[in-house]
Structures are given as structure tokens and as C-alpha cells.
């Protein structure tokens, strides 16, 4: 995917060779060297995350994405989107999947949209990316939690720990976004048309941060209960194995007196062997029924 320019006359995206500082542009990091106007601002922004000069604002904001990990399955991944906004242009710089998603979901019906409105749309898409990823992580967390019902190893627990950590990363990234937006708002004059847009974005960031933080805190607080569930699974298996051990011990214990080298009761009875077997297994069976009634065998 090359540099993309939005043609407002034809209402289409067109591939372009260079950034002309007028209109809406989508770029990837490797294309920046083709845009000398942008390079200096982006270089400064890379260090400070925010660069303001006159009516130009350059922001480097964290964006949340979903990624597949061979060990942990679906996980959250952080990347950055850089926005360079002037009253007449907006350049959006980021990884290809991010740019593509932005183009598909957020940058449609643009013919009558001002650069300010576009900036707000992109800012909101960045803020909502954290909430969207948080929701997917929570769904995955709930699936893993159900898988814990029968788990005795650490696989699911380790995945849950990784998801909790990802949720924490989202909260941190949202806080970072808030900090950058607050600084951008301070650096923007109150009469600038961008000011109310940044203000609205900042308020929305606070709301989303509160929500994601709440989700993170609540799910983190119950992690110890998951440990309890896994331990309970192992205990249940041990419980059933122990009851079987007790059951095996019982016939041995009851038949032992008839091993003695002394005169035994009923030793001349022809059916003593059958009688003793019936006796020991009968007693064992009675115990097994009692144990079953009390849930000793329940898994």
C-alpha cells in the first residue's frame, strides 16, 4: 500500500507519490522520507509525542490492536499513529493494517468533512481502539475462565495473566493518550477551531479510560479465585484417588485376621472362602455407597 490521497472532487482515494501539504493523506513510516515538509515535525514528535507550531499540531498516539501469539493466542498489541494536522491538511502515519482499518471504518463519506472533523474522527478511533481491544480481551478471558473448569495445568492461568497484563497496558496507553491530548489542548489557543475538538476528544478519553480501568481492576481482583479453581480441580482428582485407595485397603484390612496361623472360626466350613469374600466386599460396597452419597466420588 503506497501513499494515499483523498480526492474530494471524485470522492475516492487515489495513490500518490508525494505529500503536498493540502488535503487528507495516509502514509506508512517508510514513505516519510518522501515528504520533507513532514519529516522535521515527525522527528520532533517522535521524541516528545507532541509538537505544536503555529496552527500545526503533530501528535503521536498509542493505538491498540489485536494480534495472534503462538503461545498465548489472541493478545493486545500497541502501536502508534502519528497525526500531522494543519488547517488545510491532515497526514496520518501508521502501520499498514492500522491505516487500512482506519480507511475502511472511519474515513468514509468525506466529501463535506472539514480537516478539523477528520482530526476528531481519527482521535476518537484511536481512543475507541482501546475499548474495542478491551472488550475482545474480556471475551477471551471469559472463555479461558470456563476452560479452567477442567484445567489442572498452568496453560490457561498463564494466558489469563497475559490478558490481565494486556488490559493493564491498555489503561496505561489510554492515560498516555490523555496526557498528550491535555498538553495539546494547553498548547492550542482557545479561539482555535481545533480547541473544541481536542476538548471533546479529551473528555471521551477520560470516559473510556474510566471504563477500561474499571474492567481491568475488577478482572484483576478475581485472579486469585482462578488459582483456587485450578487447585480445586487437582484436589478433586486427589480426593477420588484417595477414596479408591481407601476402598482397596478395606478388603485387605477385613480379611487379614483370617491370615493368622491360629485356629480360625468357621475354618472347617466348606464355603468359608466364598463367605469371607462376600463379607469383605459387602462391607467395602457399603462404604462405597456411603462415600458416594457424601460426594467422595464426584468430579
Amino acid at each position, binding site marked *: 500500500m503506497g501513499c494515499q490521497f483523498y480526492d474530494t472532487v471524485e470522492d475516492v482515494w487515489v495513490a500518490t507519490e508525494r505529500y503536498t501539504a493540502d488535503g487528507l493523506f495516509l502514509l506508512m513510516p517508510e514513505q516519510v522520507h518522501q515528504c520533507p515538509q513532514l519529516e522535521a515535525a515527525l522527528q520532533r514528535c517522535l521524541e516528545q509525542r507532541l509538537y505544536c507550531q503555529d496552527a500545526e499540531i503533530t501528535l503521536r498516539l498509542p493505538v491498540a490492536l489485536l494480534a495472534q501469539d503462538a503461545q498465548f493466542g489472541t493478545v493486545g498489541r500497541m502501536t502508534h499513529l502519528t497525526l500531522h494536522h494543519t488547517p488545510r491538511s491532515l497526514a496520518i502515519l501508521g502501520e499498514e493494517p492500522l491505516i487500512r482499518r482506519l480507511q475502511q471504518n472511519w474515513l468514509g463519506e468525506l466529501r463535506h468533512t472539514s480537516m478539523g472533523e477528520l482530526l476528531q474522527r481519527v482521535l476518537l478511533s484511536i481512543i475507541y481502539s482501546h475499548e474495542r481491544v478491551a472488550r475482545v480481551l474480556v471475551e477471551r478471558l471469559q472463555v479461558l475462565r470456563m476452560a479452567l473448569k477442567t484445567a489442572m495445568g498452568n496453560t490457561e492461568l498463564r494466558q489469563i495473566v497475559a490478558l490481565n497484563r494486556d488490559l493493564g497496558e491498555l489503561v496505561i496507553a489510554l492515560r498516555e493518550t490523555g496526557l498528550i491530548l491535555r498538553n495539546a489542548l494547553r498548547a492550542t489557543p482557545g479561539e482555535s477551531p481545533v480547541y473544541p475538538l481536542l476538548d471533546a476528544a479529551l473528555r471521551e478519553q477520560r470516559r473510556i479510560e474510566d471504563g477500561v480501568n474499571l*474492567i481491568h481492576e475488577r478482572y484483576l481482583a*478475581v485472579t486469585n*479465585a482462578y488459582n483456587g479453581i485450578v487447585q*480445586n480441580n487437582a484436589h478433586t482428582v486427589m480426593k477420588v484417588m484417595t477414596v479408591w485407595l481407601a476402598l482397596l485397603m478395606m478388603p485387605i484390612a477385613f480379611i487379614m*485376621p483370617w491370615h493368622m496361623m491360629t485356629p480360625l472360626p468357621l475354618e472347617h466350613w466348606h464355603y468359608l472362602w466364598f463367605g469371607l469374600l462376600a463379607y469383605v466386599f459387602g462391607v467395602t460396597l457399603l462404604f462405597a455407597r456411603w462415600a458416594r452419597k457424601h460426594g467422595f466420588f464426584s468430579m
Partner: protein
Amino acid sequence: MMRITRDSLLSGNANRRSWMALVNPSASELTQAAATLDIPESFLRKRLEGEASRPLIKQERLISLQFQVPMPKKGGTGQFMLVPLSLYFVPGYFVTLSEQEIPFLSQLIDPQKPRKRWELVLRIIAEVTRNYLPTARSVAREMAVVERDLRQAQRHDVVYRGLDINDRLLTLDLGLLQLEYVVSEIGHFLPAEDAVLAEIHEDTRIELSQVRDQVDSDQATINELLESYAYVVHNNVNHLFKFMAALIILATIPLFIPGAVAMNVPLGNFPHWHYGFTVVTGGLVLVEMLTAWVFYRKGWLRLD
């Protein structure tokens, strides 16, 4: 379903406005409503589809608010669903949009006694807040049922029920958080000179804050208790282990007492002694009873 009730409320300059109620509207009803209201259809559709958006949007011709209304699910105590309710102010109309009929709306919007628009919004929010309270209480009450079952629980089902309660309280908390945000934002739109509206706004804010505090408190309690629930279940299982270990010890004693008289070595006169069996078995029973008594006194043979 689309329903229009004429002259149902008053605008800021005391003009009468109609109420358009959109309940689970079909595609054609949405198109018709958007045309009547002269707003883009996507404004209505996106709210219905639950796309991420600001709960309060103010534009030149439109103010839009959205929050979640808790509605009880049939057949389950403490079970509920959050129904998104969107409100729109457009010239000439007040629009409510939801996937389900919200029963209290028709009681609050009365053409006989039309209210001012912000008063109506605040009354709706106050009613929604009041709906959160019993829902949160009924969810929290389930904790008592879980705790009752804990006494006998050997498996983690009770922990899962606790986790489910925790999830539902979190859903309520997130709904209340959104409502709190809307109420706080509405404060900027209220006419400064209207003391009655300011009072209703403050009351609603306080009521909302109280409900949130209660949900937070219930959730903090269950968060703390869930770990204890797991330990109680462990302890129940450990009681069984203890009981069974005691039983195995008792079952082991006959292995060495009669076993000592069962060895294939010269045993003197013992194999011919008439009372040998009775004496050894009697001794065995005595040792067993003594051991069992010690175990019982120590509580190792108790299951409760």
C-alpha cells in the same frame, strides 16, 4: 415500530414538540424516521448497532444522548439486560430509540402535562437510575444463596456463580458510569437561570452517585470474598482428605497386628492355641477403637 405523539413536550422557547418513539424499528421505518427528522439515517442506525460513539453529541441541529436502561429478564432473579436508549432533540421532535419498549417513557411523556425538554431528560435519567438500584440489589442478594451453598460445596461451581455475580455487577457499574458521564455533560446545557432544573440535576447526580457507590461496594465485597469462597471449597475437600487419611490409617492397622501372626516362621505354640484368634482379633479391635477415639477427639473423623 414507529409512533408519533403530537405536542408531548416543550422546547427551550416553550414551543410544543412531538415525541417520536422508535422501538426496534425496521429498515424502512428508520429511513422514514430519518427523512421526517431531516437527519442522516446513519445517526439512528449506528446507535442501534451499538457502535462505539460519544454518549452525548451536540451538533447544529441535533443533540443526541445515549445510556443503558436495566431491564429484568423473565424467569431469573438477578438476571437483567442493559437496553441502550438513545434520545434525540431535533427541530420539532423529541425522539426515543431503543430495541425494546421502555415502559416508564409513556408515563413520563404526557401530552396533557408537557414538560420542558431538559426536565424531561433529567426525569428519564432519574427513573433509569432508580431502575439500577433494585437490579443491583437483586444481583447482590444472590451472594447470600452462594454463601449458603458454600457449606457443603466441594467443587468450584460456587466460585463460578460468584464470578458471574461479579460480571453482572461490573456491567451495571459500566452502565452507571456512562449515565454519570451523561448527567455531568448535561450540566453544561442547562439554562443557568432555571433553579428548578438545577435542583433536579443535582438530585439526579446525587442519586446516581449513591447507586454507583452501592454497586461499587457490593462489587468490592464480592471481589474480596471470591478468594475466600475458593478457600472454603478447598477446606471442604481437605476435610474429606483428612477423613479418608484417618480411615486409611485405621485400615492399615490390621495389616501388621494379624500380619505378625501370619508370618511363615516358627510361631511356637501360638498356631495351636485355641484362643489365639479371639485374643489377637480382640486386641486388634481394641487398638482400632482406641485409635478411632483419638482421631475422633482430634476431629479427624468428622466431616462437617
